[in-house]
């Protein structure tokens, strides 16, 4: 069972308290009616599937109840960082370099 740091509770908490919420930073178009069918389908159905760092949404369901974002490594299943919803997406390349140099 992983420990996940909740950026709102500011604590490491057990994985059991969390729910996965899909890829992060997929913004809903502000005016969907102005979006083409192709763009809308892309928004609905298409996601990245990287080998390596993945930015994703999690919710501390059985905790503070807040959605937040996390960078998780899809090969090692390790959480690299977590941050509050609304904060900017971290520089993944810089994070990857940092991980590489820490090895």
């Amino acid at each position, binding site marked *: *069972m992983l420990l996940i740091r909740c950026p*709102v*509770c*500011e*604590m490491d*908490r*057990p994985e*059991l*308290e969390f729910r996965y919420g899909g890829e992060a930073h997929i913004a809903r178009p502000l005016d969907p009616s102005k979006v083409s069918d192709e763009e809308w389908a892309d928004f609905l159905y298409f996601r990245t599937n990287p080998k390596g760092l993945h930015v994703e949404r999690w919710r501390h369901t*059985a*905790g*503070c*109840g*807040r959605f937040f974002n996390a960078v998780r490594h899809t090969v090692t299943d390790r959480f690299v960082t977590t941050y509050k919803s609304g904060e900017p997406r971290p520089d993944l390349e810089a994070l990857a370099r940092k991980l590489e140099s820490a090895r």
Partner: protein
Amino acid sequence: MSDATITAARRSPLSAEASSLGGVTLTPGAPLLRLILRGAEAAEAADTAFGADLPRRPNRSATAGERAALWLGPDEWLLLAPESDAASLPASLASALAQAPHALVNVSHRQTAILVSGSGVEPLLNAFVPLELTEAAFPVGMATRTIFEKAEIVLWRTGSAAFHIEVWRSFAPYVWELLEAVRRENAAN
């Protein structure tokens, strides 16, 4: 909503009675007035009206007399007060908060309390709760939603060896029976 004029019979979701075994006492909580207050902007006005400063720090509680405010989220508090406040407190809070956007919802009957205390309380709860419960990790006054096996609860440490569990009413017998089962195990050890 609940007040002294009601004559209809009230039935608690827990029919069990308080008992002690192996150094742990389990007690079904008495009825309480329970309010969920949402909205960070309303907190300041609520501090005065409720009589206890609503905690701004995550997973903490504040108490004043028999009233307690538990932080559940950054804009979410569970307010607990004695039944005798049921007639007046919701209204006085609502009028004090009138100028600040907020939500105040009465959940007195949504959930019930199970009080667990005694020297063996940490290992008992840790049969089902995945959080570290030493006083260093979960000090007196800490409160949080968490998992109790397959139920969700609010766990609030009220004393060095005392916890107050808030659980939705239909899950209360499940939580009570599991606590009872492990209490028997630990007593037999």
